[in-house]
């Protein structure tokens, strides 16, 4: 019990710290006075404050939301597929969303956030529906590795189509930059359109979390306790759609957060999803914010996309887990 509370408080404090740090650090290190002014007594004429309010603040908030969203969606998927190696990226959901966006980009050079979201959503839903269909056919008794392989197949499928669209419509490398994942182009406008969706998703996830724990006991047990497993799964997939779809629309296709964060978090708070989901949320947010700051500091003034940083951490982590045999 104490481990759990300890975890929540420590991570929370770290998160707040990280949030402030992300306002201060970047290609240019801002002064603390600028930061506090930008937040509380904003002076539009001050350049230093402008930087913070218009560029860094939306990025920071976006990072928090998206980090939480990806992590929670990963936890959800792992919960409903009883698959410890599930993640929205590995299962092709991200690539699906990315494809939707690519199509949108191809049709209308520089789409508005709303249009982008629609595209991203449609793409993500295609993946989600497919995965749901396939795994429900064998009542989610599909071995984890098969779902992952399916996801890999879907990923490469969507990636192939995205590539060809990119070639055909001569979409420039900027779109690839976006694909790879980062908060670089995050604006208030985008944030305003999307944050309600993410918040809704997070709320939904927290509400459905006790049911997920029941699911993990096995379908038969869940049914004998009066639950309807498939309904729970459908709802969860919907929430994943909300979370992953909007996050990809904001920052591009980022994998591994959904995979790593729940694993790490389970170590501290146990396997009850009532705790795993919120814990994944704040830890995911922390993770992403830190990765975002790092991405700005690694090779200034160039930005290394956040997606790279996360993958560079995620893959070795995953490989080590595999080698140790804990996956």
């Amino acid at each position, binding site marked *: 019990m104490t481990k759990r509370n300890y975890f929540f408080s420590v991570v929370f404090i770290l998160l707040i710290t990280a949030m402030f740090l992300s306002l201060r650090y970047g290609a240019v290190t801002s002064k603390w006075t600028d930061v506090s002014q930008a937040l509380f007594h904003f002076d539009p004429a001050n350049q230093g404050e402008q930087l913070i309010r218009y560029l860094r603040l939306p990025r920071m908030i976006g990072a928090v939301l998206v980090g939480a969203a990806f992590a929670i969606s990963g936890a959800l998927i792992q919960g409903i597929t009883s698959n410890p190696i599930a993640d929205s990226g590995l299962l092709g959901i991200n690539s699906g969303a990315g494809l939707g966006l690519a199509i949108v980009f191809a049709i209308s050079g520089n789409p508005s956030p709303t249009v982008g979201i629609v595209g991203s959503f449609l793409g993500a839903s295609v993946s989600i529906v497919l995965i749901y269909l396939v795994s429900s056919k064998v009542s989610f008794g599909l071995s984890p590795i098969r779902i992952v392989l399916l996801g890999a197949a879907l990923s*490469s499928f969507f990636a192939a189509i995205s590539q060809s669209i990119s*070639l055909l419509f001569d979409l420039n490398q900027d779109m690839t930059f976006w694909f790879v994942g980062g908060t670089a182009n995050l604006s208030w406008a985008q944030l305003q359109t999307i944050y309600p969706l993410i918040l809704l998703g997070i709320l939904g996830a927290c509400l459905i979390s006790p049911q997920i724990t029941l699911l993990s006991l096995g379908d038969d047990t869940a049914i004998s306790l009066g639950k309807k497993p498939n309904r729970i799964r459908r709802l969860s997939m919907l929430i994943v759609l909300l979370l992953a779809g909007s996050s990809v629309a904001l920052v591009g296709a980022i994998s591994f957060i959904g995979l790593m964060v729940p694993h790490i978090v389970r170590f501290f708070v146990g396997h009850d999803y009532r705790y795993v989901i919120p814990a994944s949320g704040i830890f995911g947010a922390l993770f992403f914010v830190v990765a975002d700051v790092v991405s700005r500091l690694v090779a200034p003034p160039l930005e290394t996309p956040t997606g*790279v940083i996360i993958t560079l951490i995620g893959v070795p982590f995953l*490989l080590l887990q595999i080698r140790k045999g804990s996956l």
Partner: protein
Amino acid sequence: MRKRIGWLSLFLLLITGGILSLTVGTIPLNLNDLLHVFQGTATTSQQLIVFDFRFPRLLVSIVAGMGLAISGYLFQTITHNDLADPGILGINAGAGLTVLIYLGFFATGESSWYLPLIACGGSFIATGLVYYFGRQSERITPNRLLLAGVAVNAGISALTLIGTIRVSKDSYQFVTAWLAGTIWGTTWQHVFLLLPWVIVLLPLILLRGRSLEVLELGDEVAVGLGVKLKRTQLFFLVCAVCLAAVSVSIAGSISFIGLIAPHIARQLTGRKNNQTLVMSALIGGVLLLFSDILARIILPSGEMAAGIIVSLIGAPYFILQLLKKSN
């Protein structure tokens, strides 16, 4: 009976495909022209087109398709998992990244003689990584290998995507095209780089065909029947990697052939090993051949990537198969 129809149709398809491949393109030829070309009585430009461009391309697509199909068949048998595709082990990704690094930072000129060799090297490094992490006390544990493959793949793909942002526009175009599976290696040089592998390895594999069959019964049963498990697995694994790596290095990053060709072959021939293997190879060759033909004619101007066509056919077929399976 099914079997016989299968062989017959494959044979016919090969011939038709061959003719189509030679006659179709930006400068169309008809059968008459083709006859003249073979008799040596056509115009020099027609001779050039057929013998210097289309014929080698025809051979490359067939042989690469065969290589990928055989590789897929071997992987699926060793890993006891019919969802395995050579791409899963990082072959495509490894080659892609190396090609990118080479082109982006060391040289220009896609027709570089070294490119296939470099790509191959990249594949081996990637597979080595996967093997290292997926290995468990000398035995090849299928699930771990596949998992490690997915992880390494994801990592390399991410790095590659990053890389494509940083390189010149030309390199970007080339690598993207390569990643999409454009058959770029279309000179006789490339044919001779590719052909020996298949010609040498295929008979060796067929000679050990029975061991492969017995492996399908299960690892322990195989040992009980006298199969030298470690050695046999390693032999087939190395063959599979070699075949896939060379095919991919010359024909571009193509997925799904190794996945679906064996499936289709098995449906037609049951599990009589050597027959199924050869049939897979032919199906793979036909698949890639026709995908390439389609890729050349489907757009009003310019070409599409063969790999995309394969994905467009392959992925839905694969997903349908999964949906049908009641496991």
